[in-house]
């Protein structure tokens, strides 16, 4: 590679797709080849982000596209589908298939699937050294001979084979590879059916995929052909006594086995006895209770540190309870999120406000700039360090191999909600904050499952809601026992609601997936590369600012308008604002419980922005500086308190959560479904709580 930045006349830019199964080290390779000067953009017409970078080799320019990881051409998510579309679309000069030697069988199966469609392929084999230590040796020349496309052994971290890889990419792109013709797998009995489809003008590779029942391709051929394909598939099933996809898979696996037998030798393992990873696996997998406790404590410890740094929670709470309230206050004020808010508040009140006053700006514009615009920017930016650190945490867990183990261990509990064990991460993160929790659903491979989790996740009580809970409980409930048991009740309720919501949504066909049961690969443990982890995390955080930020910011302006605009224009008195009208309207829902204060209605409405605002908004509405006075002004009974708290704990977490759900799905209908589910379930639960408590002598 020459990256000296000299201006040369480049004859042509070759388009090359980089494709790999999970855990093959694709990001490392891409990063290494492009010198992390890639850029990320949504794929045209898709909501999937794809990295693109440029590499120059011997004066030839290569546009390298880092496609989403794929398990197999039987796709489950929109990411995998994009990669498949790219492969089938053939708008490239070459494909690099990065093969993970740790799961050689599946990797080769995938390579065969791709080779059926195109031979513009270079196979790169990584992690040879780790395989060698496990006694697995691969004959690269033999593999090249069998697959009939170039095969290169590489290590991006050690810069081995990279130049050769680039040379081979150019060779393939320029159609100069001298192989022994195109790779062709003999499907025996199926050959006559394949020929029939080929006679109808389909390429062999596509014909095979059609017989396999590839729904993506079936949706894209004309009616007549589709009927013909279905006929053939039925005929095959009758003749073979098994589905064509089963038969094809079997033929391919037999071929994989033949290839492995000829090109791989198993020798003595270099490391005698069990490795640390294997011993650890023995420990966590053999005893469910021990395994759960171990992985749970690791997860909690990681998240504890991250949230304590960013929000102070739950360290402040612990410190407060052991009598170190000075320390608790310190942490509450000087965590990363707090410092960012402090910075913006200083900027607004000590810099912008005096400046605007000096320029004789009208009062409403000062208020809008400080409490609308600057507060909005602050709301977006205060999330960034948290989102970044959560991404680092998730990348480490994923890259190290711990994620797969967690999936296994927690599947026993998570099955109650019909989701996979990995969901423990989005849930755990959501207890701190729902926003990064929603982002963490990216670890779920199945899109349908991801939607189910995203719908249920907002029921998990976050830190902001905990603050409201503590405030209201201490204002209206004197008994510490009742306070504590109420808190426990709300957390339990939130998990139950999570399960109910996840189950409810799977009654809608679009969000139901079969086989939600556990089936995962346990890759060997790795120590993650800091460079890669940082790169992924930083990039995701940047996309959070641009994507979610553009929704959070205008929403905070709208909320400012509601509370500051009334019949007679700009006002600082809430009772004269639009908020009064809306607040009185919202609170009608709670009439059956005897709650009529418009101030609470307005607070609930403001709570859509962020839950911290609920108490603050009450204080403003009751025109007091003391939030406890404001809350007590509501004069709620115990059943009323617990019932309204049930509602606050469960209805819409905050606009930022809805914003990330939208930016992750780009599906407004789904966001509305989310909103509807949250509000209706919250209402039902709060009615039930009120009715049940009214029967008790409290």
């Amino acid at each position: 590679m020459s990256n000296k930045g000299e201006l040369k006349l480049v004859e042509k830019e070759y388009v090359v797709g980089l494709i790999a199964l999970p855990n093959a080290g694709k990001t490392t390779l891409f990063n290494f080849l492009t010198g992390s000067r890639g850029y990320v953009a949504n794929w045209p017409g898709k909501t999937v982000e794809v990295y693109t970078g440029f590499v120059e080799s011997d004066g030839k320019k290569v546009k390298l596209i880092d496609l989403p990881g794929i398990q197999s051409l039987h796709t489950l998510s929109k990411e995998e589908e994009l990669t498949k579309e790219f492969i089938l679309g053939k708008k490239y000069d070459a494909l690099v298939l990065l093969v993970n030697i740790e799961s050689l069988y599946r990797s080769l199966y995938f390579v065969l699937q791709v080779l059926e469609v195109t031979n513009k392929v270079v196979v790169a084999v990584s992690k040879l050294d780790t395989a060698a230590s496990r006694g697995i040796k691969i004959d690269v020349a033999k593999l090249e001979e069998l697959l009939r496309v170039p095969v290169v052994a590489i290590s991006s971290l050690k810069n081995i084979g990279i130049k050769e890889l680039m040379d081979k990419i150019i060779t393939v792109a320029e159609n100069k590879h001298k192989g022994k013709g195109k790779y062709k797998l003999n499907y025996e009995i199926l050959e006559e059916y394949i020929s029939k489809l080929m006679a109808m003008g389909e390429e062999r590779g596509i014909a095979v995929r059609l017989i396999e029942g590839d729904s993506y391709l079936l949706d894209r051929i004309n009616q007549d052909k589709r009927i013909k394909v279905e006929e053939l598939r039925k005929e095959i099933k009758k003749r073979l006594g098994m589905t064509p996809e089963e038969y094809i898979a079997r033929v391919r696996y037999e071929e994989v086995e033949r290839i492995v037998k000829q090109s791989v030798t198993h020798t003595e393992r270099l490391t005698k006895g069990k490795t640390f990873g294997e011993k650890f696996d023995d420990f966590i997998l053999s005893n469910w209770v021990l395994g759960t406790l171990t992985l749970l404590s690791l997860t909690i410890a990681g998240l504890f540190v991250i949230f304590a740094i960013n929000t102070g929670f739950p360290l402040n709470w612990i410190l407060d309870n052991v009598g170190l309230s000075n320390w608790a206050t310190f942490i509450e004020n000087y965590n990363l999120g707090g410092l960012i808010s402090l910075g913006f508040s200083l900027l607004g009140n000590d810099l912008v406000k005096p400046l605007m006053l000096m320029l004789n700006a009208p009062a409403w514009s000062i208020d809008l700039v400080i409490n609308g615009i600057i507060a909005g920017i602050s709301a977006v930016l205060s999330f960034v360090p948290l989102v970044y650190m959560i991404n680092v945490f998730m990348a480490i867990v994923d890259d190290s191999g711990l994620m797969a183990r967690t999936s296994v261990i927690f599947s026993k509990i998570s099955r109650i909600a019909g989701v996979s064990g990995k969901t423990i991460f989005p849930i755990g993160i959501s207890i701190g904050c729902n926003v990064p929790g929603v982002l963490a659903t990216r670890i779920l491979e199945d899109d349908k499952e991801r939607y189910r989790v995203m719908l249920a996740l907002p029921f998990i009580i976050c830190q902001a809601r905990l603050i409201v809970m503590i405030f209201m409980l201490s204002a209206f409930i004197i008994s510490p026992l009742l306070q504590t048991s109420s808190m426990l009740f709300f957390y339990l309720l939130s998990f139950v609601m999570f399960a109910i919501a996840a189950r409810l949504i799977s009654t809608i066909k679009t969000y139901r997936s079969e086989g939600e049961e556990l089936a995962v690969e346990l890759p060997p443990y790795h120590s993650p590369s800091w460079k890669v982890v940082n790169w992924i995390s930083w990039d995701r955080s940047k996309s959070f600012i641009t994507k979610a930020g553009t929704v959070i910011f205008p929403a905070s302006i709208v909320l400012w308008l509601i509370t500051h605009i009334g019949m007679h224009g700009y006002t600082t008195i809430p009772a004269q604002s639009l908020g009064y009208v809306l607040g009185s309207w919202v609170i009608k829902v709670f009439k059956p419980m005897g709650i009529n204060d418009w101030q609470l209605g307005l607070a609930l409405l403001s709570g859509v922005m962020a839950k911290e605002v609920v108490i603050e908004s009450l204080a403003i509405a009751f025109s007091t500086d003391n939030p406890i006075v404001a809350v007590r002004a509501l004069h709620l009974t115990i059943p009323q308190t617990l019932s309204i708290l049930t509602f606050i704990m469960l209805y819409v977490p905050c606009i930022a959560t809805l914003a990330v759900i939208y930016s992750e799905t780009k599906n407004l209908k789904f966001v509305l479904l989310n909103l509807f589910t949250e509000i209706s379930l919250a209402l039902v639960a709060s009615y039930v709580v009120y009715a049940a408590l009214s029967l008790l002598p409290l």
Partner: protein
Amino acid sequence: MQTLAEVEEGKSVRIVEIMGGYGLMSRLLRLGIIKGAVVSVVRNRGPVVLRFGDSIFAIGRGMAMKILVEEVVR
């Protein structure tokens, strides 16, 4: 004939039948677990841990009970 969930740890078996819908089949197919494949059972307490080729997989017990296998004599 037994199900995968009943196989003793350390034994190798060949998959004879997968009794499940398309969803189950395709999940297993993604992992390479198909009819005729020979897998060895590494651990059989809770989820069933399998070795297939060079990879290790874990599948749920419910799923394992839907997979019929026969023992392979080495």
